[in-house]
């Protein structure tokens, strides 16, 4: 009876452990627990800035978003999974060739996701919190926190399964339903003066401990899941798109950079893949906005450093994530039979990175304008460029063309943090003493060049893995 579920669990484990290595992948929950522990230890500090209720609300939303993103993997991650493993090889698609119904497969898929991500993310997070509680003087009903955060995760997951199912049937139905339900809810909450964000049932349960909130939470989990299971569809609508040749024109425009055909190909990949450039902007703007708010609140209450300068340092690290996007749609197996060196691809991606980095630079200039702080603009730009180059160089050295895979290897991720964080901490501390000290960040640029040069030699001499 549980053969299908067991098979899917094995498949999930093997698909990840093949890419990251069993040991390293198994270490990932440990890393989550360590981060959760560190975050929990900072709770007293956060409580000087935000009320406990606000922190609880934010944490519940983080778990909802986490549930949504786990569910969304089936939607956004299938491009990558299909390319790497092929649809035919995944159990989720076996209803095409084996006498198993889509409903049964989908049900097992749902249960597998709940068990798998609960074990790999939710439980380690809660373990980290549990280990931190004896060290911080906060009284907390641990069982209640565990229950309501789990419910938040499941609400997010169920909602995403419902949205995915609707999308699989028709994107119009999905948009229609979102408009039909979303608009009245927003209008009614505005009319009746309801605090919509605080109405999250799992959070309400945490606050009120009422049976009604428990019932609503369970309703929001069971109903979307039941609808998804009643109308399963594993095939997503695939449009066969046609495009006029835009490689030639784009290559010509980017000729000044050299290797323009590789850079153009990366830009075309990003534009034509699902979500287009929008998903990249969202994936970058959202964390930038998050850091902005966090830093703004933090420095307002603990005014030890300058917002613009610290923001430029943190954005430098964040900008290095652009490299993940530039490498996401490339596999070296596409080039291995052509006269192309790994280092040639790396060089072209660094050039593409430099071009896209104009966006964070613009954000930095806008921030300086908004703060009316042009006196520190030059220093913050230099700091951003230095930190961004250094973080990128370290990432390239450690992960080559595979940051999207190898950064999930716990060992490599920790090495990345150990190599990048001392320089960042040093710069933040220096900025507290005197903004001009940040000019010392310039030393990171030749260091980055040196690391990148070493990366070329390292990755050119390796047989490329075919992830």
């Amino acid at each position: 009876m549980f053969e299908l579920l067991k098979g899917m669990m094995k498949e999930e484990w093997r698909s990840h452990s093949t890419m990251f290595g069993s040991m390293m992948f198994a270490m990932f929950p440990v890393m989550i627990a360590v981060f959760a522990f560190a975050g929990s230890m900072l709770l007293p500090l956060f409580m000087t800035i935000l009320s406990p209720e606000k922190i609880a609300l934010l944490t519940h939303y983080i778990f909802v978003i986490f549930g949504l993103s786990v569910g969304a993997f089936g939607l956004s991650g299938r491009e990558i999974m299909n390319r790497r493993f092929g649809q035919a090889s995944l159990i989720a698609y076996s209803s095409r060739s084996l006498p198993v119904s889509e409903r049964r497969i989908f049900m097992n898929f749902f249960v597998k996701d709940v068990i798998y991500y609960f074990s790999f993310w939710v439980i380690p997070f809660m373990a980290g919190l549990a280990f931190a509680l004896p060290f911080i003087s906060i009284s907390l009903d641990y069982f209640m926190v565990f229950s309501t955060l789990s419910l938040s995760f499941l609400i997010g997951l169920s909602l995403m399964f419902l949205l995915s199912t609707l999308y699989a049937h028709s994107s119009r139905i999905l948009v229609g339903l979102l408009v039909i339900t979303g608009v009245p809810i927003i209008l009614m909450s505005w009319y009746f003066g309801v605090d919509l964000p605080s109405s999250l049932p799992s959070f309400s349960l945490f606050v009120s401990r009422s049976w009604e909130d428990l019932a609503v939470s369970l309703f929001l989990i069971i109903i979307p899941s039941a609808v998804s299971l009643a109308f399963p569809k594993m095939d997503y609508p695939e449009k066969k798109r046609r495009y006029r040749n835009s490689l030639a024109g784009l290559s010509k425009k980017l000729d000044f950079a050299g290797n323009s055909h590789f850079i153009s190909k990366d830009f075309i990949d990003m534009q034509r893949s699902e979500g287009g450039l929008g998903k990249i902007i969202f994936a970058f703007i959202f964390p930038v906005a998050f850091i902005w708010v966090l830093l703004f609140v933090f420095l307002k209450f603990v005014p030890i450093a300058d917002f613009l300068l610290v923001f430029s340092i943190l954005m430098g690290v964040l900008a290095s994530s652009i490299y993940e996007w530039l490498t996401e749609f490339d596999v070296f197996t596409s080039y291995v039979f052509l006269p192309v060196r790994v280092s040639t691809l790396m060089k072209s991606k660094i050039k593409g990175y430099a071009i896209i980095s104009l966006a964070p630079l613009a954000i930095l200039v806008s921030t300086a304008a908004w703060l009316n702080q042009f006196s520190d603009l030059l220093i913050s730009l230099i700091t951003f460029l230095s930190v961004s180059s250094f973080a990128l160089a370290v990432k390239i050295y450690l992960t080559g063309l595979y940051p999207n895979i190898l950064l999930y290897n716990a060992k490599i991720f920790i090495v990345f943090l150990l190599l990048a964080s001392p320089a960042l901490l040093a710069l933040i501390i220096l900025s507290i003493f005197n903004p001009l000290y940040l000019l010392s960040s310039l030393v990171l640029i030749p260091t980055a060049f040196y690391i990148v040069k070493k990366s070329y030699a390292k990755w050119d001499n390796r047989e490329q893995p075919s992830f």
Partner: protein
Amino acid sequence: MEYAIEAKNLVKKFGELRAVDGISLSIKKGELFGLLGPNGSGKTTTIKLLTGQLKPAEGEAKVMGVDVLKNPIRAKELVGIIPEQETPPSFLTAEEYLLFVCKIRKLKNAEKRCGKWLKFLEFEDQKDSLCKDLSRGTRQKLMFAQAFIHEPKLAFIDEPLINLDPVIQRKVKDFLQDFVKKGGSIFFSTHVLEIAEEICTRICIIDRGKIVYEGPIKDLKKKRQHLEELFLKMVKEA
């Protein structure tokens, strides 16, 4: 004698498995050489070793006089390779991919070359489709075109006809035979014996990474022996 391909004692290990176990080969210019063997016998690994896609544990290889181990990029510049799995970048169109390959190979008259191959292999109507949306057969045509677009003197072809329709298969076979007549060399890997028997000038059978037979196809014809009989006998004995 100048050889298109020379390999001495090539060995490739994957863990404990010796996928290629001491293979030595010499292929003359103007030969259409067929590498035959059952699934998993080491055909694709041999091609990858000969073209610098993999590094051997032991042995050496030269293609068109270039040491593959020392200068794999130069070797890939000189030859055309059709890999076993067609993996053109997903989000380029068929035409863009061919132009992309022309750019990589620094070729002049790229658009003319692309047009010629799109027409020859009869997939002009698919030139604006994304590579990920192409059928396997069309992707195979695309990979065939990219391998010959720079007019190499030597081509390595791994199972090139398996997804093509009979009309295009005939065209491709004629092209390959014409190519060797004009002095080009082909290293052709397949397990479809009829095709090898029809177009190859010399064959080699490998099993479990070792050569179990090597000889001209005309010898078989003289002995009135079928390639299938020989293949089954050799693989059984090995």
